[in-house]
């Protein structure tokens, strides 16, 4: 690796108040981004989550200069874009939406032409083909590739520059389970080598497994962001499940905690306590009144439920949710 990576917590990608309204003569105006903010720090694998049509692809296209925003500011690797995009383009590898290539050229030719256009040594072509597992099929025409193979080729084209920032829009699309795992390993490996990876997805298990931090977008606005653990903790409400040695004491314990300033939900066999900083505070407060805690556990949530809650896209029995039908949640 010849590139020097920036160490420490510097923002590799910053977006502030980004706005984009698509206008078309027939369908009128459609507001895709409505004051969107996002920050990605160096060396992270950052998940960019949102339901279909929430504005992920629009954000990435705007960032990469394919679309003109109606307002807001953006910076990549410390350079304002789109003004200084051409000076950072060589350090940003990206795939946007379902990747498309000229169908009559082989993967080898496609990458070789991009390498020439971007003034990258031709030797890099074989390296990236190896990396994404297309080595043995590289001489076949792209037309004959499966969706997953095209996706791999797209990742290869993004890696060709050996970028500092890698942006992948729904990279797991069309990949088989083995492919998804390989992609995940590849991203870990790239991130370990110092690359910052931004990964848009609506597949949450994926993101939770490999991302250090996430930004969640809904209806063109950021609804949550930060390290995965933090986002989970915030949206579990810091809730704690409290069980006592004797169930008969539950209601008096509830009164004690409410008096001490916590919010309490009285359940038949436990208390659900929210609004406390540290679970240990519950134990201490109750012990002071000679009420003894037998079990104290933070409420576990996964990213999926947070996502569904924040974007208001949880399925409701008997209803067919339409795209764009998300609930507005204050950030």
């Amino acid at each position, binding site marked *: 690796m010849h590139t020097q990576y920036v160490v420490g917590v510097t923002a590799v990608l910053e977006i502030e108040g980004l706005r984009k309204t*698509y206008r078309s003569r027939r369908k009128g105006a459609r507001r895709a981004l409505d004051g969107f903010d996002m920050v990605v720090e160096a060396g992270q694998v950052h998940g960019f989550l949102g339901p279909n049509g929430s504005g992920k692809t629009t954000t990435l*296209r705007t960032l*990469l*200069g*394919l*679309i*003109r925003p109606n307002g807001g500011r953006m910076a990549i690797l410390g350079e304002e874009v*789109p003004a200084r*995009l*051409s000076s950072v*383009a*060589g350090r*940003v590898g*990206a795939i*946007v939406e379902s*990747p*498309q*290539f*000229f*169908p*009559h*050229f082989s993967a080898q*030719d496609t990458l*070789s*032409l*991009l390498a*020439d*256009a*971007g*003034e990258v040594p031709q030797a890099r072509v074989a390296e990236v083909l190896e990396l994404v597992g297309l080595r043995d099929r590289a001489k076949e025409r792209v037309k004959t590739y499966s969706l997953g193979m095209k996706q791999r080729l797209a990742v290869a*084209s993004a890696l060709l*520059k050996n970028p500092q920032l890698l942006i992948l829009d729904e990279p797991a699309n069309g990949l088989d389970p083995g492919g998804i795992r390989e992609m995940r390993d590849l991203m870990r490996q790239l991130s370990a080598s110092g690359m910052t990876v931004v990964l848009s997805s609506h597949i949450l298990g994926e993101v939770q497994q490999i991302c250090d931090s996430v930004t969640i977008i809904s209806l063109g606005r950021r609804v949550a962001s930060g390290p995965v653990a933090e986002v989970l903790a915030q949206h579990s409400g810091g809730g704690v499940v409290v069980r006592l040695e004797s169930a008969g004491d539950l209601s008096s314990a509830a009164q004690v905690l409410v008096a001490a300033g916590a919010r309490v939900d009285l359940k038949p066999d436990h208390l659900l306590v929210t609004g406390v900083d540290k679970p240990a505070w519950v134990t201490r407060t109750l012990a002071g009144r000679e009420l003894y805690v037998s079990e104290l556990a933070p409420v576990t949530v996964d990213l999926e439920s947070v996502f569904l809650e924040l974007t208001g896209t949880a399925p409701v029995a008997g209803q067919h949710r339409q795209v764009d039908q998300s609930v507005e949640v204050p950030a």
Partner: protein
Amino acid sequence: MKGLIKAEVRRLVKRRITRLMAVLLVLGLGAIAVAFTVGSQKVGPAQVAAAEAEAQRQYEESLRWHEQMVADCEAAKARGEDITQRFPPDCGNEPGYAPQREQFDASWNLPYEFHFREQFGVFISIFAGIVALFGFIVGASYVGAEWHTGGMMNLLLWRPRRLSVLFTKLGVLLGGVLAVTVVLGALWTAAFWFIGRYDGQTGKMTQGAWESFALSGARGAGLVLAVTAVAFGLASLGRHTAMALGVAVGVGVVSEIGMRIALGIAEIRFADRWVLSTYALAWFEKRWELQDWRACNISFSGQCEPDMFVVTWQQSALVFGVGTAAVLAAAIWLMRSRDIT
């Protein structure tokens, strides 16, 4: 920048349609040259003598037919039949009714002989027309397919300066088509010069004659480049090869057929003034005369001369130049401002 140029040259040459069209172009031009090699024959004393003999033979045969007819007519008259229906008056015995020797011109029987100096000018126009078609198809599909398949978007992720990408592509395309025009044009000239030299006549090729051909060739090359650039601009505007083809067919139909009919019905004078092909002809011929036969100007000799409208090659240059510039300007403007989704 060098890398981008290299990549675009490689892409252009690698495309199947470029290769296929180049092969068809060479085959087509080759076929025309071969047809004229075979069809043209040098005319020497032997050919002249053969043509004279053939003319004589035709004269004699025609005379025999005539005499036979006169004999038949006389016989019928002797039998008292009505001869006015089947035979000319006086059984064709009138003076001057019999075939005359000078009515049979030996030159009609001469084989076709290609004359380089006098005829090659037309072949320059034919060449330019065929190469322009090649430029149109290659130019439109080169950028049209690139947009349509998402290749352009990929490239812009590497090279965000949109106009420099567009200009590089256009430059590479025009350079490539110009190279093809020059190389094939040289071969085309050589081929016809050889046809003139060995199967016809070259005529007296003075420096002036060569210069005149060179100028015609340059005008032809100019037209080829303009057509190529327009195809490129249209396909880029519509982000699809079909856009250029559609507009070409549309303009062709509207200009060549629609305008002619409409202006004809409206009895507009010099209707062809509004038809594009008139300007193409004027471009090649240096001037093109449109005539209005309904007007009668009495000339010195007392004859009726039609009104005339002259289209010059300068006017053609203006029409084609403005058209090309407009298409390219629109393509550039849209390239700068459009959302690429």
